[in-house]
């Protein structure tokens, strides 16, 4: 009986979604309705089947936990996202792009570093977290260091690949104009590398949050999202854990969105940005 009710709700919402998708506003409304459907089903399943809070809290409980613990959640956010992840992201991406500018000047270095960089980018870099926590202490500095190590190689590899992505015709044109190396970099190589750089930056944004949170599992002060998750799981206070996850998901999506917006603003001419 309960299962039938859930299925009916799902069928009704899905058919509404199918109708929406055909209309012109579907591109915006369909994903929103899909998300809403998931939330309603989640809430319904938890309530109808009396799922214990320990296993899966209902969305309403999670929302309650978020509202009740705003100061704690904000302090965790500052500690992990602003101090750890953002600092590390800025340093790591800056270093990655600068190193790529140096590497791209030499064909030899490019051929040597790209395979190595690709290899390192595929490694479980999170594993360096315990080492870096040992070196830099329990504070946010060690988290930033983990993030730097994690984001450096994806950004380096993408930027190097991007800086090499100029056609022979374009380079010849710059030469006929008598462009200096700096001018060629400014007007040809960097603009054509931007789509690649942004690809690397997008990967780096998601990696940065993961790195900052996971590094806290290996030692942290008594605040921070990773600390909160591991301690509240220990106390089986699941709504609080999910509240932290909501904050992490929001922070992740918003920073990804910010990078995507910046990309659209700077590389509006690229085919993938045309609509």
């Amino acid at each position, binding site marked *: 009986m309960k299962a039938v009710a859930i299925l009916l709700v799902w069928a009704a919402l899905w058919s509404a*979604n199918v109708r929406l*998708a055909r209309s012109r506003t579907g591109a915006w409304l369909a994903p929103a309705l899909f998300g809403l459907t998931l939330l309603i089903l989640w809430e319904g399943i938890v309530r109808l089947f009396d799922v214990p809070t320990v296993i899966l809290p209902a969305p309403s409980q999670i929302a309650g936990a978020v509202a009740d613990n705003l100061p704690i959640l904000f302090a965790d956010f500052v500690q992990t996202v602003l101090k750890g992840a953002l600092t590390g992201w800025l340093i790591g991406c800056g270093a990655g792009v600068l190193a790529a500018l140096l590497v791209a000047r030499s*064909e*030899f270095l490019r051929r040597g570093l790209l395979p190595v960089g690709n290899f390192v980018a*595929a490694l479980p870099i999170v594993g360096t977290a315990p*080492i870096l926590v040992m070196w830099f202490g329990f504070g946010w500095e060690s988290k930033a260091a983990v993030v730097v190590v994690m984001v450096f190689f994806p950004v380096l590899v993408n930027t190097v690949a991007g800086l090499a992505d100029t056609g*022979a015709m374009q380079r010849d044109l710059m030469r006929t104009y008598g462009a200096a190396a700096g001018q060629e970099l400014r007007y040809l190589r960097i603009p054509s590398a931007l789509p690649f750089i942004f690809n690397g930056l997008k990967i780096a944004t998601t990696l940065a949050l993961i790195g900052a*949170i*996971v590094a806290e599992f290996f030692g942290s002060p008594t605040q921070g999202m990773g600390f909160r998750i591991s301690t509240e799981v220990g106390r*089986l206070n699941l709504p609080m854990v999910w509240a932290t996850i909501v904050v992490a998901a929001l922070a992740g999506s918003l920073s990804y969105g910010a990078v995507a917006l910046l990309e659209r603003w700077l590389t509006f001419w690229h085919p993938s940005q045309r609509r």
Partner: protein
Amino acid sequence: MTDTPLSAPGASVGRSGRVALRRLGAGLWPVLVVVAALIALWYLACIPMNAQGSLLEAERAEIAVTPPTAAERRDMGGLALTAANPTVAAAGAFAQDRPRLPAPHQVVAELIDSTIGLRLTSKRSLVFHAGITLGPTLLGFAIGSLAGILLAVGIVHSRVMDLSVMPWAIASQTIPILAIAPMIIVVLNSVGIQGLLPKAIISAYLSFFPVTVGMVKGLRAPAASDLDLMRTWNASTFRTLVSLRLPTSLPYLFASLKIAVAAALVGAIIGELPTGAVRGLGARLLAGSYYGQTIQIWSALFAAAIVAAALVALITGIERLTLRRMGLAR
């Protein structure tokens, strides 16, 4: 890379004399030089990183060091200590028991000790721990890739799914899933599900996304004329999928499988952390960090790297074989 071939128009401008030299430098040689440079840099970094320890040992062996007591040295940086006692710091940097940064040969020695030097069933054997980690990695990878392929098939064939599922699939990746790995493990544990499956779920979650994105691209890769041809033959949607879309998507599939398998390994390693660090590569990392066994951490890290490289190489091999048999290899 997008290096222009020498036959491209205008490609030989300004580089005719260097062509022969470039041929020599192609291939393995630059990689070897870079790796050698990195190892040299590593050895160099060991000296200041381990300066505290080497000076302490030197003091115990009654060799004169510049700030004579440990208390005075505590607040000094590694570089300053090295500058004050270059010979002592360099002499003691590469053979400490618990160095802050172990030298490469120490890590390699530990790797060999704990793989070849021990019985495979030994609790200290890295092969044993790697095997423990490999199980959930492969199971999760299989679940994740299968789910990713199915989701991609759905997305390509249904406009509703494309519109409503794709944005959420992207959003799901901005959630730092690794951060909730401990919760998944603990929660599933409380319902009585233990062992392989919880870790495999984390691996699967991490590996499904690259496969979905790659396969959506790949399943849409057939040219419009090919699709039209299928339509003239009155092929069903299923027939088109099996005979045209899936074969065309294979190069995309393999590219994303390589990313997915590396992600699955990371997922399995993180999944081991909250289980109390008993067995597996992640457990070795955590145990090493609890007891300050730096060499153990580094060797576990390198073991993980070797496993990741082997998995990616395995998929590359399968890719070569398949694409060659299909006549797609370049």
